[in-house]
C-alpha cells in the first residue's frame, strides 16, 4: 500500500490541494464545496485566520490582511522595496528580510511562515477529506523561481509539518495534468500567466516521458499587473477630492478592475460604477486591450527566448497549453494564437490544472505509477565568482536536472586554511549583476604551500532545482567541511527554529481542536440524553437510576465549561457507562416491539 502524496498549488492569489484517488484526479474542496483557498492570512487580536475568512476582513482596520506573500518568498527587503507600495500591509526590514509585523502576538512573520499557514490549512482540508493524516506533498513554484525562492517554498512546507517530496515547476505540472490519461505525443508549449508571475516552457511528450526542452519567464509579471494597468488609466479620471493613495480606494479600484477584466472576456463593453467614491465610467474591450498590450508584448520576450534556447520555431509546436487565470483574457489568447497558429488547449480549468499536475507528480513519487516520468530543467545558469568579479558558469540554464558540476579549488597563500566560494545564479557576465545565492567556505584545510591543496567541489542541482554543495579533499579522500552563508532568505538555523516553533503552535492548535471536538461531542450527548429522559416513564427507568444519570449529566456540563479536554472526554464516557443499562433495555424494548412482543433468547439478542 502506497501512501497518498498530496499535490499543492501555492499560488499568489489562490491555492488548492489535489490528489489521485483510485486512479482519478480530484481537487479537494472545503466543507462548503469551494475548491480554491484564497492565499490570504489575517492577523488580528482575535487570532490568525486563513483563506475566505481572512479575505473577508480586508477592510477591517483592526486586522492586518496579508496577501500575495508569494511575491516575497526567498527575496530580500531590497528586492521587494519597489513593490511594497502596491501592498496594503506593512513590511519591516529586519536583517535585510521583508517581515510582516504581527503586533497582536508580538512577533514578525516571514513569507515562508505565511506560506506555511496556507499550506497547513490545505493539509487540514486533505486530512478531513481522506480521514487520515497526510505528510507527503508536492508543491508547485513558478518555473523561473531561483534557488532561494524554491528553498523558501520548501521551508514553508516543512513549517506546515509537510514532508516536501518535490518542488515542481508550475508549467510542467500543467503539462502533466494534460498528459494524464489523454495526452498525445508531441512538442507542446505551456503559457502560464498567473496572478503575479509569468512562465513559458517547451516540452516534448513521448511515451509517458515529459522532457522539458527549455523554460523562461518573468517573476514580476502577472494578472495583478493587468489590473494595475487598468487602474493607472482610471486614476487619471478619478473625481476631484478622492485620494488615490488611500488603501480603501486602491482596494475598491482593484476589485472593480478585476471585475471589468472578467466582464470584458464575455462582452465588448462594461460599466464601471463605484458610488462610494463617486466614480462612474464605461470601459470597452478595445480600450482595455490597448492598455494591457505592452504587458502582453512583455510576455512574448521570454517566449522567444525559450524558443531560441530550444532551437525550435513556433511552427514546430504541436499545441499550446494555457494556464493561469489571466489567460482567460481574450487578448492574451489571441496573441498566443497569432504567434503559434496552433490549437490552444484551454479545456482544463486554468485555475486548477497546476494543482492537478502536482497530484500526478505526487502519484509518481509515491511509487504508484511507473508509466510517467518528468525530466525538468534548471531555469537559470549557475556559476561562481572568479577573478575580477566575473561570473564563470558551471551549469548553463535549461540543463536537465538532476545535474552535477565538479570544480577544482586550491589555495593562493602559504598556510591558507580556508577558501571562499561565491555561488551565483543568472545570465549576466558580471557577478554583481547576478543573484548571489550563497557564500561557501571550505574550512579546515591542512596548512601547506600555496597551490598544493586539491579540493574538488561538487555542485549538485537536485530534481527540485535546489543547490547542494559538497567538497572532497582529493589528496586524502576525506570530505571537506563546507559552511554555507545564504545571501538571501533565511539561514538553515533560523528555519530549524521556525519549524520547531511552528510545531509548538501546531501542538497548541491541536489542543484547541481537541477541546472544541470534545465539547461538541459532550454537548450533543447531554442534549440527546436529557431529551430521552423526559420521555421515559418509571416503568423503564427507575427513579434511582434516573438520579445517577442526572448527577452525571450535571458533572459533564460543568466539565464542558472548563478548558480540560481530557476531563470532558472522561466525563462523557462516564455518562456513557451509567446510561448503558438503560440503552440496552431501550434497545430490547424496540426490538420486542418490532417482533410483536416476543422475547428473544439472550444469545440471539447479542448477535
Amino acid at each position: 500500500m502506497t501512501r497518498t502524496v498530496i499535490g499543492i498549488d501555492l499560488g499568489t492569489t489562490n491555492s488548492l490541494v489535489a490528489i489521485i484517488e483510485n486512479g482519478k484526479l480530484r481537487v479537494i474542496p472545503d466543507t462548503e464545496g469551494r475548491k480554491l483557498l484564497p492565499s490570504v492570512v489575517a492577523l488580528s487580536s482575535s487570532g490568525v485566520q486563513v483563506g475566505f475568512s481572512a479575505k473577508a476582513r480586508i477592510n477591517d482596520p483592526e486586522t492586518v490582511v496579508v496577501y500575495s506573500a508569494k511575491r516575497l518568498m526567498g527575496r530580500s527587503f531590497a528586492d521587494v522595496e519597489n513593490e511594497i507600495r502596491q501592498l496594503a500591509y506593512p513590511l519591516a526590514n529586519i536583517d535585510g528580510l521583508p517581515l510582516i509585523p504581527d503586533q497582536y502576538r508580538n512577533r514578525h512573520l516571514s513569507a515562508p511562515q505565511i506560506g506555511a499557514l496556507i499550506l497547513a490549512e490545505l493539509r487540514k482540508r486533505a486530512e478531513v477529506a481522506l480521514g487520515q493524516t497526510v505528510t507527503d506533498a508536492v508543491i508547485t513554484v513558478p518555473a523561473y523561481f531561483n534557488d532561494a525562492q524554491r528553498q523558501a517554498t520548501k521551508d514553508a512546507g516543512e513549517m506546515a509539518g509537510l514532508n516536501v517530496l518535490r518542488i515542481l515547476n508550475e508549467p510542467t505540472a500543467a503539462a502533466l495534468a494534460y498528459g494524464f490519461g489523454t495526452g498525445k505525443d508531441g512538442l507542446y508549449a505551456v503559457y502560464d500567466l498567473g496572478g503575479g508571475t509569468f512562465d513559458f516552457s517547451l516540452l516534448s511528450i513521448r511515451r509517458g516521458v515529459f522532457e522539458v526542452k527549455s523554460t523562461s519567464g518573468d517573476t514580476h509579471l502577472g494578472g495583478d499587473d493587468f489590473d494595475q494597468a487598468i487602474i493607472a488609466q482610471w486614476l487619471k479620471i478619478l473625481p476631484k477630492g478622492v485620494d488615490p493613495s488611500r488603501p480603501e480606494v486602491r482596494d475598491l479600484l482593484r476589485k472593480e478592475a478585476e471585475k471589468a477584466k472578467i466582464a470584458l472576456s464575455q462582452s465588448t463593453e462594461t460599466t464601471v460604477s463605484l458610488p462610494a467614491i463617486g466614480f462612474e465610467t464605461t470601459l470597452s474591450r478595445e480600450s482595455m486591450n490597448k492598455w494591457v498590450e505592452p504587458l502582453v508584448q512583455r510576455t512574448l520576450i521570454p517566449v522567444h527566448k525559450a524558443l531560441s534556447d530550444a532551437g525550435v520555431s513556433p511552427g514546430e509546436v504541436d499545441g499550446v497549453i494555457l494556464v493561469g487565470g489571466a489567460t482567460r483574457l481574450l487578448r492574451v489568447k489571441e496573441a498566443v494564437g497569432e504567434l503559434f497558429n496552433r490549437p490552444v488547449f484551454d479545456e482544463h480549468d486554468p485555475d486548477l490544472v497546476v494543482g492537478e499536475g502536482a497530484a500526478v507528480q505526487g502519484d509518481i513519487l509515491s511509487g504508484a505509477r511507473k508509466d510517467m516520468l518528468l525530466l525538468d530543467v534548471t531555469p537559470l545558469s549557475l556559476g561562481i565568482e572568479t577573478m575580477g568579479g566575473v561570473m564563470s558558469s558551471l551549469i548553463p540554464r535549461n540543463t536537465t536536472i538532476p545535474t552535477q558540476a565538479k570544480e577544482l579549488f586550491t589555495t593562493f597563500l602559504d598556510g591558507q586554511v580556508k577558501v571562499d566560494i561565491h555561488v551565483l545564479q543568472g545570465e549576466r557576465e558580471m557577478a554583481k549583476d547576478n543573484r548571489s545565492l550563497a557564500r561557501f567556505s571550505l574550512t579546515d584545510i591542512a596548512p601547506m604551500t600555496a597551490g598544493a591543496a586539491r579540493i574538488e567541489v561538487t555542485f549538485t542541482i537536485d530534481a527540485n532545482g535546489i543547490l547542494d554543495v559538497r567538497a572532497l579533499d582529493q589528496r586524502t579522500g576525506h570530505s571537506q567541511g563546507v559552511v554555507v552563508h545564504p545571501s538571501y532568505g533565511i539561514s538553515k538555523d533560523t528555519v530549524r527554529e521556525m519549524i520547531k516553533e511552528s510545531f509548538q503552535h501546531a501542538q497548541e492548535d491541536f489542543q484547541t481542536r481537541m477541546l472544541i471536538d470534545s465539547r461538541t461531542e459532550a454537548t450533543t450527548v447531554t442534549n440527546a440524553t436529557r431529551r430521552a429522559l423526559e420521555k421515559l416513564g418509571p416503568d423503564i427507568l427507575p427513579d434511582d437510576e434516573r438520579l445517577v444519570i442526572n448527577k452525571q449529566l450535571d458533572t459533564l456540563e460543568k466539565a464542558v465549561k472548563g478548558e480540560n479536554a481530557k476531563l470532558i472526554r472522561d466525563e462523557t464516557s462516564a455518562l456513557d457507562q451509567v446510561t448503558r443499562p438503560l440503552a440496552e433495555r431501550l434497545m430490547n424494548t424496540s426490538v420486542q416491539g418490532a417482533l410483536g412482543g416476543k422475547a428473544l433468547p439472550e444469545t440471539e439478542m447479542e448477535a
Partner: protein
Amino acid sequence: MGEHTHRHSGDMASSLCWNCKGTLEEADLCGTCVKIQPFKEGRDYFDILGLPHRLVIDSGILTEKFHEKSRLFHPDFHRMEIHTEQEISLTNASRLNQAFKTLKDPFLRAAYYLSLQKLGNPAIDPKKRLSPQDLMELMELKEELESEVAIGHQEKAFARLEKETKNLEGIILGNMQEIDQLESGAESLSPDQPLTEETLESLQKKKVRLSRDLEYRKYILSIRREILTPATVKETS
C-alpha cells in the same frame, strides 16, 4: 563480438553488485537483487547511453536510449529506497543527463568523440589552439563586423555572421559523415584485414580538419554573442 569492438573500457565484466555482492551480468542493474549500479569511472557517454562509439547518431534512437536509461536511474523512481541507492540514482542520472546533452548536439558530440581519441594523437585534440592564420582571419572578420555595426548596419553584419556560421557548420557535418563512413566501413571488415595506409591517412587528415573547424566555430559563436548582445538589449528596452 559486439557491434563496436574498439572501445569497451567501462563495461568490464566480473564486477560485483554493491548490494548483494553477486557477480554482475550487466553494468547498470544487478540481475540478482535488482539494484541499480553506480557507473564505473571509465564509462564514457556512449557507454552510459548504451550506444556504439560513432560520430553520427540517429537522434530518435538517442532519445529513446536516454528515456530508457532515465526510467532506470531517475531519482523519482528511487525515492523510497535506502540512502546509498538514492545517491547512486542522483549521480547516475546527472551523468546520464550530461551524456545526452553532449551527444545530442552534433558539435559537442564531435568534440567529445575526438577528445576520447586524442590520447597519443594530439593533432586531433579539439582544445588545440588555432593557427596564427586562423586567428588573424577571425580578428579581421570581427573588425569588419564591428565597423558595420558602428555605422548602423547591424542587420547586415548579423546576416553575414549567420552565413559564415551556416557554411562552417555544413562543412563540419559533412566531414563528420565522411569520417563515420570510413570508420564504419572499417568495422565491417574482418579484424585480420587492416585499414590501408591510405585510408588511415585520410581519416587522420579529416579528423585534424574537424578539430580545427570545431574550435573555429567556437570563436565565431563568441563573436556572434558579442555582436548580438547590444541588439537584444535594445530589443527588450
